């Protein structure tokens, strides 16, 4: 029974991975690519690791999979945040039908305070 549940969770994780990579290829600029790819690929990889843990039980492989899942869950959004800030400082513009840019609205106040 555990094997079937693990396989179902792994299949859902694989679907999230593939959809995140399609978003990485198809979307127009860096920020949309960042949010599509990072969120869904992080969820997909975490579901693959949970599926491995459910499939094998709490042996050495399962416990290492849980530790690795916690680590990916903490570090991947941190890296995405750093990349978004670096890309904005690098000077990448938003794609053209843009709606709002709160970061640029917040910049002159900080410059005035300094």
């Amino acid at each position, binding site marked *: 029974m555990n*094997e079937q549940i693990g*396989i179902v969770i*792994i*299949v859902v*994780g*694989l679907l999230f*991975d*593939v959809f*995140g*990579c*399609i978003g*990485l*290829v198809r979307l127009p600029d*860096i920020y949309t*690519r*960042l949010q599509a*790819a*990072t969120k869904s*690929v*992080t969820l*997909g*990889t975490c579901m*693959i*690791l949970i599926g*491995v843990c459910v*499939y*094998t039980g709490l*042996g*050495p*492989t399962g416990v*290492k*999979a849980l*530790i*690795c899942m916690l*680590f*990916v869950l903490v*570090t*991947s959004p*941190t*890296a*995405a945040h*750093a*990349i978004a*800030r*670096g*890309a904005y*400082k*690098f*000077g*990448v513009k938003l794609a053209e039908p843009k709606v709002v840019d709160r970061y640029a609205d917040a910049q002159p106040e900080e410059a005035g305070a300094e």
Partner: protein
Amino acid sequence: MSTFIFVALGVLVVASYMCLYRIGCGPTAPDRTVAIDILGVILVGFCALLSLLTGRDFYMSVAIAWALLSFIGTIALAKYLEGVGFDE
């Protein structure tokens, strides 16, 4: 079960090739950085499935070490991008 894991590894290889396409012809440097980060996270799942296929647990140790190194490399690239200007 072995057939299912081979199909799953093939799906992850296809996803990795999409990331490699974005690394190869991303217009700016942050696009390539995002693709490198995503490639690292996908390879962690690849190592987990290899551990399931072979029944050995050291592949999970490889996955943990890979996640650490990928995170450090991505943070270094992002801090590097903050300092460089983008003059078109």
